[in-house]
């Protein structure tokens, strides 16, 4: 559908207030990082009187935000890598060694889509305690690895498009089942691996419920958990809280800028298949 140039200018004008309103909360957060607590409460919306950067220094001094960032990074990287590997591996026999048993395995795994995390929460809490996995980064990583079912589902759809002749030819050439997967199949999965990594990264980086329940101590907080604690500690000091929020949002914004196209592609791919 094409419209004249005049009509298009109208669209710009029509969306401008909606866009400004949508962006407004981020504007508020940013301007208030340069104010004192008093100025924030008396003039929350205006630009700061003087641009004061001391809140930024204070956040790094008073909160363990660097360590929390490191923890979030370790947890996210390790669990995403695990999930991608486990999920891709699981799809391999289901696609290349089909049979009644692997059909059942597939249904068993896809059932996971219908099971909300909340339903498993109480026994999970006990299980994590019994296995001594509470307040351990690797405990949370192991727990997240169980979320590989979503990756498995994405990989399954993609792997079905890989021609079977590829693996048959490799077998004739004397390649083992193990070698075929790692040397031939896995490298071919790159596009869907990128999609999986993006979605799982967003989930784990942003997750609050699991870290809240399974990480308690000050040493092992994630960035989101740190924000939650800060909200309690700085309940009267909004500028400090806002500054922390901005510092947290910067890497997310960079991720968004770099990955926007990939995220959209992933949404589309996932939606079309789903």
């Amino acid at each position, binding site marked *: 559908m094409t419209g004249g140039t005049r009509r298009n200018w109208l669209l710009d004008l*029509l969306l401008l207030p909606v866009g400004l309103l949508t962006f407004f909360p981020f504007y508020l957060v940013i301007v208030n990082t340069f104010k004192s607590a008093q100025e924030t409460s008396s003039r929350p919306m205006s630009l700061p009187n003087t641009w004061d950067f001391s809140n930024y220094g204070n956040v790094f001094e008073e909160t363990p935000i660097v360590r929390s960032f490191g923890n979030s990074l370790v947890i996210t990287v390790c669990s995403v890598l695990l999930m991608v590997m486990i999920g891709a591996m699981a799809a391999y026999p289901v696609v290349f060694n089909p049979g009644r048993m692997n059909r059942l395995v597939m249904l068993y795994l896809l059932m996971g889509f219908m099971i909300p995390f909340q339903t498993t929460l109480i026994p999970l809490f006990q299980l994590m305690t019994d296995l001594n996995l509470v307040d351990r980064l690797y405990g949370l990583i192991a727990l997240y690895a169980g979320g590989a079912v979503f990756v498995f589902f994405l990989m399954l759809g993609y792997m079905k498009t890989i021609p079977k002749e590829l693996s048959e030819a490799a077998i004739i050439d004397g390649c083992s089942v193990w070698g075929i997967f790692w040397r031939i199949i896995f490298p071919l999965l790159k596009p869907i691996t990128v999609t999986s990594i993006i979605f799982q990264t967003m989930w784990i980086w*942003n997750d609050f419920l699991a870290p809240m329940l399974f990480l308690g101590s000050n040493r092992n907080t994630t960035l989101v958990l740190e*924000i939650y604690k800060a909200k309690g500690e700085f309940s009267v000091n909004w500028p400090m809280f806002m500054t922390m929020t901005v510092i947290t949002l910067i890497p997310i914004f960079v991720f968004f800028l770099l990955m926007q196209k990939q995220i959209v592609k992933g949404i589309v791919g996932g*939606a079309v298949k789903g």
Partner: protein
Amino acid sequence: MTKALKQLQYQVFLLPILLVYTLFTIYPLLRSFVLSFTDFNGYNKDYNFTGLKNYMKLFADDAIVSGISFTLLFALLSTLIITVLAIPLALILDQNFLTKNIHRAIFFFPSIPSGLLLAFIWGFILSPVSSGVLNTVLRELFGVGPQPWLSDPLLAKLSTIVVATWASAGWHAVLYLAFLQAIPKDYYEAASIDGANRPQLIRYITLPLLAPAMTVSVMLLLTGGLKVFEVPFALTKGGPGFETHTITQVIVLRGITETQYGLASAISIVFFLIVLAIAYFQVTLMQKREERIQ
């Protein structure tokens, strides 16, 4: 190499996922089911089977009843509002105009950061005190006194839904946009030659062809809405009273905080059944709808 050995080599690839998935998802699900019929409290190793007692108790428990009803309200209302906003937004973003990309980014970005963080930011805007941002705007523009956005039962519920809408509408608009862009241009050209005007094109070509996108988007919104926790928790802590408690928060409260494992397990099983039933009916109904209108 014998066939059996080769088979075995393939099956080894399933071991890791079967292990973590069974341990962290299936086993806890089954155990939830078992615990829901007991009076297990976490301390006493021996516990008694109490039949359906926990399930009976659910409906007499204020927190649980209000958790279930608020969660359902949130899921349904946020799905409805987001869908009603996302489709026109996608139609607009499908046009060619100067600020298209920047607007798409602005609407899409709020779906990327954590919901907890976004809800805290909104807590600043909706702060019920007179220096709260929204209350300041209302006072200076309209002379309206401070409104209890987060402490009045009805306003608190609506506030959580508004924040969730702000955070997700752009994401769903992008999903619809992808489907819009897949509609062949010939359809529009053919219909235009037959004399269809713009509203007719949207009514008879665009909307019917968006039906599959709608099935997916509504499914994601409903299941996500039922699992909601962070946004209300960060905005209102579940208050006033139990008004904006979500099912998740109630499970944590009764189960982890108060160690009423049996009762909390019963809530989780009821929750599981609600999610199953709603997902099943939604997908069946909307797929029938797709067949009917296409």
